[in-house]
């Protein structure tokens, strides 16, 4: 896609052509359409950044075009032209996402300015690299005006901390080996408030390096119990950039799927910030707009010489002052002094971004294939230092630890990081980010793009810790951002209060399910039928997955292979490929497992309704596919033709033999199958699955293809389907990644900016077009 392509839609040739000429002169790529229909045809073939649209096209066509564009190409920014800015159509157009309007007659300068601003602002909002809609997160805080600033003497601060220490644990910055670390403070004298940067961030008190999520018992009376531990604690001396990082973590852990462990700690923590007056030489906080903060703290101190200015950021902070401290109103001089020391600190920063941070997402997107990543990562040790010292990194792994008596144990969460070699490795052994260049790029993309798109905040606060920790001197996002550049406003004073957040206490706690039936499918696969102990139905959609726990061994994502239209139990067909699946295979009828979920989006049933459906399943891809096939057969009248193509490597690896036999005879479904290599007993087709596609007759306009199989299969099947003129929107795929937590937190299943467990595992090919790591 050209980064400056504009589509002009107007039925008046003169207007259309003059706009085209003006914009061409200004250096834009311009295409024109004289009707809504033509415009829609064009955007199917070609992508545009901006559409300039006459909203007054005859017969409401302007609004119709806008609707279609919003649905099909949401990233196109629309500027509408109208004669009557207050007219109903204009209002509706704004609702439909039009970003600006121009009032006729159009002035050349206005037009150019608006188009330019619209293109420039593309980075400010979520840049949509995909059509995958990342679920919007409601903010967890409400912003309210700051009540006041006060002054406390240094002696007064000391007695405040000492008084506070009677009620809670005090954590602060201490000196160690000439550097600074966060640690428990036993006496006020140990506390440093004038440090440059702490080696590791204070976020460890909210998301500790290791913590217990669950306690469980194995055996005759299995039991699972969430473990949530928190103690009252005040963290004193957090710099604004770290406060900003905490705000991001709040958004991650307190919005969708609210994390009970994080929330308990967060609500027991008092954040007492301090302005950073002597920044670390590696910091570029001002470029990320994190050198000062008006939000995110309970109290914020500023060293104004003899005394400290105290800004009150929350009710909690105000209460604390009332109980523990003596303060006075600031004088005018003191208020001026606060501004002066802050300005003085700002002047001390040595590093800065070469571009406004808002442009980072777009720049990164364009640099995806830049050789920079390869060369930059050459000396990368994959040692994890950069992510382990990062205040905004929050990815984790989950492991079971069993006591030596093998009867009880805990499920533990510990930090993990996307630059570590095994981060994106799945049970089958496939590693989706096996080279260090792609890992390094992923980390930088998270910092400058993915996190922003998901949470509306940058994943980098410019603290400079990673740049200091990286021995190979390659971790600095600033250097990466600036290198990429080379190769290619005043906020309201506010105080934050938490909206009432209700943690999901059971977020990581599985429900118990009994194994009611086991059936061997092949040497490596078995199908397990489970019934939830609470008697409820699983409540899944076809194509969703669950996290299955064999307590003591661990948890693994498994697709549900039965349709919700069948009875109260559900089935999981599982190949033996790792610890959990091996353990599942050893279970006998009556055994208990843990189930979390269902997770993920499942197949788009609404979009499939009324369509002909071409199911293409390779190998164990039949497992998730079967849930949909059953569903379609059970609701047969809601769908058009049903055609199932199935390929296995050999006759011995065919799954669900009874059902295959039934389908091959059924008039309800057209069934074709093949094997890669036959044997003496095999009378059917021999050849890879793609050889079946030319054999079926499909109408590309009313056919939806649903493809599930091993990663290698997708590329070839897609090629064949494209030959049959199937549009990308009609090709649906299900992807497997390491869905470790299932709730969009741990980071393992991420494909570029998308979490497979949240936005997937089912995608249309159109959605995957810009997900470079997907297929």
């Amino acid at each position, binding site marked *: 896609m050209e980064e400056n392509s504009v589509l002009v839609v107007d039925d008046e040739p003169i207007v259309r052509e003059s706009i085209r000429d003006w914009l061409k002169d200004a250096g834009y790529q311009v295409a024109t359409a004289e009707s809504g229909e033509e415009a829609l045809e064009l955007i199917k073939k070609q992508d545009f950044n901006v559409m300039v649209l006459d909203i007054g096209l005859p017969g409401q066509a302007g609004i119709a075009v806008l609707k279609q564009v919003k649905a099909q190409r949401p990233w196109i920014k629309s500027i509408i032209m109208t004669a009557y800015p207050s007219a109903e159509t204009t209002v509706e157009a704004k609702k439909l996402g039009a970003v600006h309007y121009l009032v006729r007659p159009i002035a050349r300068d206005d037009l150019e300015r608006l188009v330019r601003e619209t293109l420039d602002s593309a980075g400010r909002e979520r840049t949509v690299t995909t059509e995958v809609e990342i679920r919007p997160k409601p903010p967890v805080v409400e912003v309210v005006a700051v009540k006041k600033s006060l002054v406390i003497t240094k002696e007064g601060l000391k007695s405040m901390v000492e008084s506070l220490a009677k009620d809670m644990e005090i954590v602060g910055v201490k000196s160690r080996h000439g550097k600074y670390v966060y640690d428990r403070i036993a006496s006020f004298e140990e506390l440093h408030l004038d440090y440059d940067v702490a*080696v590791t961030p204070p976020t460890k008190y909210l998301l500790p390096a290791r913590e217990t999520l669950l306690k469980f018992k194995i055996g005759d009376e299995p039991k699972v119990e969430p473990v949530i531990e928190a103690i009252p604690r005040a963290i004193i001396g957090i710099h604004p950039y770290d406060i900003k990082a905490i705000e991001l973590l709040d958004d991650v852990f307190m919005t969708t799927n609210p994390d009970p462990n994080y929330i308990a700690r967060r609500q027991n923590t008092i954040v007492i910030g301090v302005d950073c007056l002597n920044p670390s030489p590696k910091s570029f906080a001002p470029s990320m707009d994190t050198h000062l903060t008006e939000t995110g703290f309970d109290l914020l101190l500023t060293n104004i010489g003899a005394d400290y200015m105290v800004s009150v950021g929350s009710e909690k902070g105000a209460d604390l002052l009332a109980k523990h401290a003596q303060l006075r109103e600031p004088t005018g001089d003191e208020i001026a002094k606060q501004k002066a020391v802050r300005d003085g600190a700002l002047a001390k920063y040595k590093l800065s971004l070469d571009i406004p941070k808002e442009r980072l997402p777009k720049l990164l997107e364009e640099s995806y294939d830049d050789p920079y990543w390869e060369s930059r990562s050459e000396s990368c040790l994959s040692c994890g230092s950069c992510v*382990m010292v990062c205040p905004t990194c929050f990815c984790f792994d989950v492991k079971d630890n069993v*006591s*030596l*008596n093998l009867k009880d144990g805990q499920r533990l969460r510990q930090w993990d990081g996307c630059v570590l070699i095994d981060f994106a490795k799945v049970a089958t052994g496939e590693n989706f980010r096996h080279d260090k260049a792609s890992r390094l790029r992923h980390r930088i993309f998270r910092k400058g793009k993915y996190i922003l798109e998901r949470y509306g905040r940058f994943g980098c606060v410019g603290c400079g810790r990673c740049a200091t920790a990286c*021995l190979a001197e390659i971790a600095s996002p600033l250097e990466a951002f600036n290198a990429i550049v080379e190769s290619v406003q005043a906020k309201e004073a506010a105080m934050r209060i938490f909206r009432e957040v209700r943690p999901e206490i059971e977020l990581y706690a599985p429900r118990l399910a009994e194994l009611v039936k086991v059936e061997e499918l092949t040497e490596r696969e078995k199908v397990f039928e489970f019934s939830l102990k609470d008697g409820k139905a699983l409540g899944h959609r076809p194509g969703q997955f669950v996290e299955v726990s064999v307590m*003591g061994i661990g948890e693994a994502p498994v697709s549900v292979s039965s349709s919700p239209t069948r009875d109260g139990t559900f089935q999981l067909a599982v190949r033996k490929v790792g610890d959990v699946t091996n353990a599942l295979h050893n279970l006998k009828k009556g055994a208990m497992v843990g189930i979390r979920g269902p997770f993920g989006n499942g197949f788009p049933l609404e979009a499939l309704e009324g369509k002909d459906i071409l199911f293409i399943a390779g190998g164990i891809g039949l497992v998730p596919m079967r849930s949909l096939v059953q569903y379609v057969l059970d609701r047969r009248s809601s769908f058009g033709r049903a055609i199932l193509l199935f390929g296995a490597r050999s006759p011995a690896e065919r799954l669900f033999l009874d059902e295959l036999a039934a389908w091959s005879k059924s008039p309800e479904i057209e069934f074709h199958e093949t094997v890669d290599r036959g044997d003496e007993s095999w009378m059917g087709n021999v050849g890879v699955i793609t050889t079946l596609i030319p054999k079926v007759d499909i109408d590309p306009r009313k056919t939806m293809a649903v493809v599930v199989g091993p990663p290698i299969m997708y590329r070839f099947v897609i090629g064949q389907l494209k030959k049959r003129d199937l549009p990308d929107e009609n090709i649906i795929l299900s992807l497997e990644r390491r869905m470790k937590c299932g709730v969009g937190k741990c980071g393992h299943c991420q494909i570029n900016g998308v979490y497979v467990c949240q936005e997937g595992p089912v995608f249309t090919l159109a959605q995957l077009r810009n997900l470079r790591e997907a297929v």
Partner: protein
Amino acid sequence: MKPKVAFFDFTGCEGCQLDVLNLDGEELIDLLSAVDIVNFREVKTEREDDYDIAFIEGSISRESEIPRLQKIREQAKVLVALGACACIGGINCLKNHLPMEEALKIVYGKDAKYYDTIPARPVDAVVSVDYYVRGCPPITAELLKVIKALLLGKEPDIPNHPVCVECKMAGNVCVFERGMTCLGPVTRAGCDAICVNSGRHCWGCRGLVDDPNIDSEKDILKKYGLTVEQAVEKFKIYNTYAEVTK
């Protein structure tokens, strides 16, 4: 049927085996109710030649140790290398560099009985090894982790990332920032960075990660003041047997 566990020592200091006894009372009782320790010369007189899991301590540094080890491999269903000497050759391999050994062979060759010595090597240079409990000495908790994994039939989860990960988790100030040098960036984690936690640096006793960036580590050591020779010497202490110092 409890699995039968046997411990065997080859060339080493026997510290690994002794740390097996560094258990709490409860743990020892649990361990003994989970497995039968049938062979443990250092603490036990009776021996049995029927065992399922064999722990091998020490490196192989004598001709006579080879058939002994092969016999153990034949008997054991699972063979676990215990400690740095067994897993990676460890400090015993330091002698492999020295011309002195050649000299000794020439001078004392006829007294082969007393001077039965060959270049030291890890266990997997002689027989196949199923699991590794790394470190000098190994972390008792990791030994237990492997035993539990064997009992549960799952893969023991031993990290394949460098010590830096755990060192940062522990909140340490980087050894390099303190004016010393360290092998943490290429050494396999699992020790919780105990040496750095104790004020020292990583010597590399757990061996290298699967895909270490040795060139980068050497560049870093040079940047922090070591000569090429000193950098190589640093690797030698535990990792002589690995390719890096060749």
